[in-house]
């Protein structure tokens, strides 16, 4: 998967957790989940659980700490999915 493909899929993962639909439609790697998408910080753990299930990966505590912006999320998903191959 390319980073762009991951980003497109990531939008679907993030969608239930944000009311900022316009900001979500226009996300790029610098988009911050909490400040730009107004996602409740407690919900980051739910996004991690959804991503784990969607990509069939395991995201540990250290990796999860990087998932504050879209680029960080893509880094983690890319790394973990590559490990599987």
């Amino acid at each position, binding site marked *: 998967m390319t980073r762009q493909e991951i980003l497109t899929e990531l939008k679907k993962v993030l969608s239930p957790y944000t009311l900022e639909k316009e900001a979500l439609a226009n996300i790029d790697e610098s988009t911050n989940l909490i400040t730009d998408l107004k996602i409740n910080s407690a919900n*980051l753990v*739910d996004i991690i659980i959804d991503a784990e299930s969607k990509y069939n990966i395991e995201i540990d505590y250290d990796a999860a700490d990087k998932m504050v912006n879209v680029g960080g999320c893509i880094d983690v998903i890319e790394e973990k999915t590559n490990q599987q191959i």
Partner: protein
Amino acid sequence: MSRRVVVTGMGVISPNGIGVSAFLNAIQNGVSGIKFIPLYEELKFSCQVAGKPDFVLEDLKTKNYISEVTFHGLKGTNIGYGLMAALDAWADAGNTYDTEETRWETGCIFGNSVSDTEAMKNVITRVDNKEVKKLGSRVVEQAMNSGVTSYVSGRLGLGNKVITNSAACATGTQAILMGYEAIKDGYAKRMLVGSSEYVDTYVFGSFDSMRVLSRKFNDQPEKASRPMSLTAGGFVPGSGAAALVLEDLEFALARGAKIYAEVLGGNTNSGGQRAGGSMTAANPKGVIRCIEESIANAKINPNDIDLISGHLTATNADMQEIQNWCQALGRSGAGFPVMNSLKSMIGHCLSAAGSIESVASILQIVHGFVHPNINMDDPNPQISDYISMNCLPTTMLKKDINIVAKANFGFGDVNSCLIFSKFNPNDTTRNFN
């Protein structure tokens, strides 16, 4: 200085109607909300009927009660009932949901028995399967007992007292009483109060095992809840919620609110599980004291009471309850007030009973009627030892109702009683200071 407290909004999720107008129509026409539950037959329960509201959790999202983000991950039916009833009451009082600022003058006292056993079942299953990592962030808020008050106060930005109370079947009346006291004593201008109960399979099964539920009318669900009848053989569990907006009279008048009724007073106590009282039975002295002190607190005379909305669950405690009312009011025979049991139509909604029955009480004041006691086609002949059968109407009675006494008695020997009155702005019969 003591403040007068009025009811300005109501919301109800009842087995026989969702929303105040559907509920009013149902209780005027004696409509039963008791249904046969096939799962309970499968599970070999003795009682296979229950009162279940025709409730759709998704309505919270599609009808804009809460945002889709809040809705995503909301699983708890009990929270759904409580939240919808509370938000309906809030809107009925003429208020909008959204606010940027915290509403410091308004609080919430809402009760339940358990927050949500479905949420807890999810926790137990996941943990036992070594899948704790999959639980996510939304479990604790739905498993904690203060789930309903947290969702309600968060949606409306309520900043005064936010309290979750629990007193078994006395929970609803107790929540309303506590909200009334907060306004009367000047701590709050407005309180959103009520209670909810979702009797899931596990709670239901626990009561079934106690052999206190109706079991002989599984093939006639609408006949299964029979308070005060000779064939009353236990109660029928019901689910639902109701909420009231209580308001300081001056605060309500200043914003031009419509006023349904006034809360004149009430009392909550316990019989201490002594003198015939136990974990499951009420000490008659505690019940009588609770009613007497409610009357004193409301500054009325026992003869002022036009209608009693009884606890009357359809167990052998019904006869004792009638005697207790006679003694507390000093009224009997044909001099006893009219009395009814909403449980004949919707079953016993446990923690939600007091709030749903309070909405029924207020509707009877507002619309001038007494709802029927259904399924009393074989009244217990012992009743006439204490009161006239005419005090227990079996069809709707059109009658001017000025004052209602509403009481509930719960496990743990806990009692709660409220006195509601028609609102009279020029009331000079009582000293409100």
